[in-house]
């Protein structure tokens, strides 16, 4: 038996609906159709009142979720693509995110963002928006990279009292498989050492974890370098301790992400590492992000826009040769 990343998301929602009557799902085409990516397939049949199709109104979808959460529910809203959450931006960052600080009453909503690039998806169906949301105080932003994390972190997201932006990577949906949903029980806020190494650390998250591991394997095979890969798992809160511990071992860090290069997760990681771990560094911390253009449509351009095992290896070689 094998279970995919999208299966895990579906299973988590089924578990949540079954175990917690406060949970309901709201999103475009998620009921009878089962969602654009089938993340809610079959759920409306089991929970007919709690899986609801939404109009094309992302702002109001988020608003509705906030209201329902204030009344004790635990809504999960599905954006059809992360890119369309730009319409829900105001409700998320100004309403949900500020509410606990302002009133003492948290807003436990979970916003599912099908994120990241796939070949041929173009500028408006490929975005990685984690840095946008993480910039704002009051929102948790999680970025599962494994099947087990996809499952466990969605369940944990819904249990958290704070609003959570759950960034699920579309590239992993059907490509990433595991034997089971069983994970290691790490909570949100804790990073994982996905691969141990001695010579350099790659800090990354979401689909790039897999590209980093590929690059690491290639470098090990080619030249014996042992690269440690840290999967942040959540970008806010960001587990800088685990990152620093890794850098303490390796002395070198590459922060890797698929998002646009200005600011973002990699900048935050590097800035925190140099603030607290400057003395640990044997080489300048490096960053590798997507290029500074919209995500291109053509598969050849797309493949050159995001980091790849090749470009990660290039960066690592530079880092290692410093």
């Amino acid at each position, binding site marked *: 038996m094998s279970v995919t990343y999208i299966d895990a998301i579906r299973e988590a929602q089924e578990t949540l609906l079954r175990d917690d009557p406060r949970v*309901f799902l709201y999103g475009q085409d998620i009921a009878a159709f089962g969602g654009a990516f089938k993340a809610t397939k079959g759920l409306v049949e089991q929970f007919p*009142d*709690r899986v609801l199709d*939404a*109009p094309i*109104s992302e*702002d*109001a*979808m*988020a*608003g*509705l*979720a*906030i*209201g*329902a*959460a*204030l*009344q*004790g*529910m635990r*809504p999960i809203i599905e954006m059809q693509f992360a890119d369309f959450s730009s319409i829900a931006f*105001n*409700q998320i960052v*100004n*309403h949900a*995110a*500020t*509410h*606990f*600080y*302002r*009133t*003492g*009453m*948290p807003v436990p909503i979970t916003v599912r963002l099908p994120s990241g690039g796939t070949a041929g998806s173009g500028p408006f169906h490929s975005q990685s928006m984690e840095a946008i949301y993480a910039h704002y*105080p*009051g929102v*948790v932003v999680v970025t599962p990279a494994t099947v087990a994390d996809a499952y466990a972190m969605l369940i944990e997201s819904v249990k*958290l*009292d*704070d609003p959570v932006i759950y960034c699920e990577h579309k590239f992993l949906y059907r490509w990433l498989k595991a034997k089971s949903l069983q994970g290691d029980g790490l*909570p*949100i*806020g*804790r990073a994982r050492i996905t691969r141990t190494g001695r010579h350099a650390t790659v800090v990354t998250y979401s689909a790039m974890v897999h590209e980093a591991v590929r690059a690491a394997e290639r470098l090990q095979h080619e030249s014996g370098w042992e690269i440690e890969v840290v999967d942040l798992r959540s970008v806010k*809160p960001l587990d800088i301790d685990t990152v620093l511990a890794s850098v303490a071992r390796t002395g070198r860090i590459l922060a890797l992400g698929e998002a646009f290069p200005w600011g973002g997760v990699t900048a935050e990681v590097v800035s925190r590492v140099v603030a607290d771990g400057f003395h640990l560094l044997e080489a300048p911390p490096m960053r590798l992000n997507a290029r500074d253009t919209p995500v291109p449509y053509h598969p050849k351009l797309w493949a050159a826009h995001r980091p790849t095992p090749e470009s990660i290896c290039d960066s690592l070689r530079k880092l290692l040769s410093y």
Partner: protein
Amino acid sequence: MIHHSNQDSQRSGADYYRAMYLAMIQARLLENKLSSLYKAGKIVGGVYLGKGQEAVSAALGSALIPGRDIFAPLIRDQAGRTAFGEPFIDCARAYLGSALGPMKGRDGNIHRGRPQEGMLAMISHLGSAVAVVAGCLLAKRLQGKLPGAVGATCVGDGATSTGAFHEGLNMAAVEKLPLVVIVANNQFAYSTPNNRQFACEDLVDRARGYGIAGYSVDGTDFLACATVIGNAVARARSGEGPQLVVAKLLRLTGHGEHDDGSYVPDAVKAGAYGRDCIDVAEKQLLESKIITAEEIAEIREAVAVDVQAAVAQAQQEPTPDPFQEDWRAFSSDFSQP
């Protein structure tokens, strides 16, 4: 403070009128005090008053049932807030920056609420409360608590131009939720007149496009507000879906106390909607013998004392201490894995 007795069901008749009137006086006297405090430099930040809009706001707030209904007041809803049970001290604390009170000085002025008790704390972004109230009602439906409950919010004429207003109202209509939306069309959004805000003859013409009920009312006419808004709430309560009420009136003050509203033409001020709804209310209540002149005097006197007391209390209270603040935007504690 004179309290609005907690109703179990929607008020009607003389009770409703009296509750409305009381809330209007409470709002007016409290807001007059806020205005003086602002002018005396005692309030930092904006002061936004509902002068001239009390009848509309009170008609809504007095038709709602605290503890059962949801109310999302906007910037000119002091009367509705009071009618819905918000004590003066919440207002005084928010404006004067007391560290006590629901917002603890973290937010101020009209950006206050008691969401735990069904009175939402507005954010500034206009129109955004509509979907949130719809969500509260959807939750109640899923929880089996919807029968007999309603949710309500007020917006201005300007807020009807927001995408949020449209998306929220349409969504509530699709879900047939008992949502009452009052548009207080005071003819201006800050300085912008209606003809730069929309091109329809009457905003109530929007109701049909959402498939919901729509009503117009003269927002300066106390009894008409009671009837139209009271009925809209009652219809929502009895399961007839979203209700839109468009009340026409005039803001009898600037946009905020920093603004003299000089862009409002004199002809408009002198026109039909320039009258003060409190004058109208008193006249109507006296004529229909619901209230006596003595009672009016008593109410005004008692309310003035309550206002004074609330402001005095808030003024003595500690302001927030940055060194005591925990500076946390999360309720979860992620420091302990």
